[in-house]
């Protein structure tokens, strides 16, 4: 009886079996990579704002403390976005005629809020509290990146759950002394793990990985 399949079928079937497996793996990896790409996470993508507010200038050049504007970061879950009044504290005196700042002055005149574009937005179902993270020695920079080097603000981290868990599972890798929380320049020492473990003890930091720590 003649062969039903041509000899080349052997090769073809091997190629398609292995090729198929490779394709599936490649597809999954590509999707995973896509999901972590800045196209999806918006990491590193600067956002346009009604007023081109520069953290680089205000924090980096002027040296204004984070808490001058984000007043409730040590007390509340929400760090706080400054009211127009805060801008006008200075800008009624300096750059008082700058056309760039007209939306700020207009807001102050009319009583209508400036509508900023949100840069850091947590996914749904997650509840985050700034105050406790600051209290436990998590630096602003740890999550928000070098804000003092951002002309327009962008997201420095994905805010994905795996990213949160990096720290929640091993806080010793990230915590810093409380007095360094607002320091943009702080560099982890070479013995960060030793420091981290010491701080965990001192600040009573636990590895909180229960669902209800963040989800409710």
């Amino acid at each position, binding site marked *: 009886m003649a062969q039903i399949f041509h000899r080349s079928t052997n090769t073809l079937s091997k190629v398609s079996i292995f090729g198929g497996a490779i394709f599936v793996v490649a597809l999954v990896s590509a999707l995973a990579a896509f999901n972590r790409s800045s196209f*999806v*996470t*918006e990491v590193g993508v600067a956002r346009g704002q009604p007023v081109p507010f520069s953290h680089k200038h205000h924090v980096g050049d002027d040296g204004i403390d984070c808490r001058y504007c984000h007043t*409730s970061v040590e*007390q*509340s*879950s*929400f760090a*706080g*976005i*400054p*009211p*127009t*009044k805060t801008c006008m504290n200075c800008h009624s005196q300096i750059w008082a005629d700058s056309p760039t700042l007209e939306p700020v002055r207009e*807001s*102050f005149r009319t*009583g*209508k*809020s*400036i*509508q*900023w*574009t*949100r*840069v*850091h*937005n*947590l*996914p*749904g*179902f997650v*509840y985050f*509290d700034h*105050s*406790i993270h600051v*209290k*436990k020695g998590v630096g602003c920079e740890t999550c928000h990146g070098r804000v003092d080097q951002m002309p327009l603000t962008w*997201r420095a981290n*994905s*805010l*994905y759950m795996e990213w949160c868990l990096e720290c929640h599972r091993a806080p010793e890798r990230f915590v810093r002394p409380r007095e360094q929380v607002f320091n943009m320049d702080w560099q982890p020492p070479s013995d960060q793990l030793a420091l981290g473990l010491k701080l965990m003890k001192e600040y*009573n930091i*636990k590895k*909180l*990985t*229960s*669902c*209800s*720590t963040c*989800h*409710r």
Partner: protein
Amino acid sequence: MKQETLDLAAIRTRLTQARGKEYWRSLEELAGTEAFQELLQQEFPRQASVWSNEVGRREFLKLMGASLALAGLSACGSPAPTDEKIVPYVRQPEETMLGKPMFFATAFTLLGGVASGLLVESHEGRPTKIEGNPNHPASLGSTDAMAQASILTLYDPDRSQAVNNAGRISTWNAFLTALNGELEGERLSGGAGLRILTETVTSPTLATQLGQFLAKFPKAKWHQYEPVNRDNVRAGARLAFGDYVNTYYRLDRADVILALDSDFLLHGPGSVRYARDFAARRKVRQGQTEMNRLYVVETTPSITGAMADHRLAFRPSEIASFVRSIASGLGISTGPTREGPHAQWIGALARDLKRHRGSSLVIAGDQQTAEVHALAHAMNQVLDNVGKTIICTDPVEASPLDQMASLRALVRDMEAGQVKILVMLGGNPVFTAPADLRFAEQLSSVGLRVHLGLYDDETSALCHWHIPETHYLESWSDTRAYDGTVTILQPLIAPLYDGKSAHELLAVLTGQPGVSSYDVVRNYWKQRSRSPDFELFWRTALHQGLIAGTAFPPKPVKLKSLEFFSQAAASSSVKAETRNPNSETQNTLEIIFRPDPTIFDGRFANNGWLQELPKPLTKLTWDNAVLVSPATAERLGLGHQIGTTGGEHGRIFADMVELRLAGRTLRSPVWITPGHADGCATVYFGYGRTRAGRVGTGTGFNTYAIRTSEALWHGAGLEIRKTSEQYPLACTQFHHNMEGRDLVRVASIEEYRKNPNWAQESSDPQKTEATLYPPHKYEGYAWGMAIDVNACIGCNACVVACQAENNIPVVGKNEVTRGREMHWLRVDRYYKGDLDSPETYHQPVPCMHCENAPCELVCPVGATNHSAEGLNDMVYNRCVGTRYCSNNCPYKVRRFNFLQYSDFTTPSLKLLRNPNVTVRSRGVMEKCTYCIQRINTAKIAAEKEDRQVRDGEVVTACQAACPAEAIVFGDINAPDSHVSKLKAESRNYALLTELNTRPRTTYLAKLRNPNPEIEKEERHGS
């Protein structure tokens, strides 16, 4: 559809044969009908996923609109919708900290205008949750269900939103022009044609304004009417003391309490405080084994009756003579009394009361006649209780009067054509006025009719002008509590719909248009305050939620001579008998009118939370029904059946009956209520609204249609005729049946004293500790809850509080009939014993947060997990809706969003949501979280201060609301926490321990304190 009629005779036989303690939850269960068995066989009726097309989706959404939960859920995939904006303040108000709620003190006014103090939680200017004010004497930090639900009314999208002139939208200024034009004419006649109709006024400021109005228009008249009024209480005080006197009770000092048809734990001024004081005397602990004793004589089963150690049910006409017998047993001469069948009961009661001179208390119900009230006063006097357990003061009302007479006078004037302008400040008299007054008809003779109200309701429809009223959370006012304490109401939010308050409308009438409520109230207190620094006085009063020292001082009262009672008694008993010759033989019944336990007089008809709240004893939702006793139902051949096919689980088909009373008829379904007095029927009013809004319109039956001014509360000559129709009722009684296990454990205080460990001994002997899973370790906190069933009064405040705190949606009647109500916390009700006078028990059931949680093991996607502190966490974004967890939960406390119950679209409801709790979508399982948001808040606060969470710092929503303080929550790892101490009590037991689930929620067993003399007699008799 398979249906069976109840065989009450068979039930009786079964009960008489039953030995020991037999608990049952419904008549159907007891009868063991095939349909009920089938219901049980279908292991989990809630799971029926049948979408019958009776209610179209459009209709369903319409129905839900006003009451559904809603929210801003961002999609969970993309973390940053690119267009989301942050809108900060321009000038941030002082003390505002975004993300932290603020609390403001105000007060909620209900029955008779009497208030209870509140603290209202506000998130960035939106009031979201109501708590009690711990400083306020009527609250002490607790609330009732209606106060909890009142916040939903604030955001109700069906509230009237614009001035309405004869059906067309108009303006406030147009109204002022029209009103002033008419007032011009009245000025000449001194206001002879001017009438104002209000509800009961306790506000000192409003009363002063009304005084000014009457001074300006000397011939004008001010009428007051509320359908649930306290006329009889006032008349009783007059009869006893010759003057209006306000009485309130000190239940904390009462050892023996006799309630004469009084539901003092649920309704009425001070009920929240009474519940607190009453329950405090029932908190038996190791080393404290004394508790109070409650006798109740009533007609309709009430939650107060359910708490009774001895309860007798009588027809309304029998109560007065029974009370006279008790009074004569106490040595008050009340004319001839006949030896009744309860002579021994009365004798034992009288001896018990006499043994507790000065620490006993007789409470007459608001609906009882003036004579019964006067007798109660006399009994308290004889028992030396006045000034001890009962305090008399000046009246709380600004102008106490007979409201029925007041309304009647108004109607007479309208009929005579003397009323030119009628201004109605609140209320809905067209709907609530007694039918015989024909208020709506007479109203048409009034030249200018103005109605100020929260809703464009039945009354507004017949008025020329309707003015939207401000909700109490939107306006300034003041009010008095049951002891006279004044609270200044402060607004939590600017009026949502440009409403006006009664103060502002009265300011117009007194010639000061444009004056705000704030100015009126503040000026009033500026003149009254004796404080040198008014600003300090004002701010203190607002902050405290009350004005210190405004409680009325006790007033010395002198009872009229006791002979008076015997004369009054003789005449009234003659009257009663001529009017009501033995009703049984005439084949007519007596009728009892009562305000609905949840929607009250109808004002909450459009409040979905209260509509869906199961009534404390019948567990009916979304409807009212005629309540009759089993014996009466048997005699009249009435009943109800369960429909079990086609997704009708829990739907009860009740016989429709036609009620005939004095020529008026009404059709209503019937509900058999164990414990109801025979030969009479109770109807709740408040239902059958025609213009309530999309939630309330068309629910239930309008029993005001047969209520007359002669028989406001009780009447004779009721005929009940069975019709061939049946009516589906949504009842939660048949769901979540736990099948007769040892769930409520009850003993008498004597048995408890003899054997304190009885509750634990009665648990299953096969209790096993074995498990294949490694044990959990709790190094930090371990949260747990203890519920004292002995303190629980079954008032449902916890259920609504939970609903408000946790953004729980309302599902509507049809969904309830499928067993899909979403309440995270339910209050189970059990009956024990005899069908006609059973003992009734309540048991709140939240999630048990088991150590070995069956739900956690079966979730295929890890959406429910054990936390490090022992909570069963629920992760909504993981849940795919398999419902395995719910199937595997022996306590049936998990709730599934079968449909999109939460309202994501109505703008006003977005303001209502608790921002710290996810609003759940369709297809997601949810359940009690022990208020995880509150736990986390407290933990963060403690960590920030480098300390442990203090005992009592985490207060769950149910615990905070509970008037009886029956729910205690805390850390069971801390041995001296309140909850640990309760769990160490010998009365502590867990539900279904034989399953080795090891629940974190445990119960303290129920105790009764029967009078040994009566109990002996009862045992002997049976």
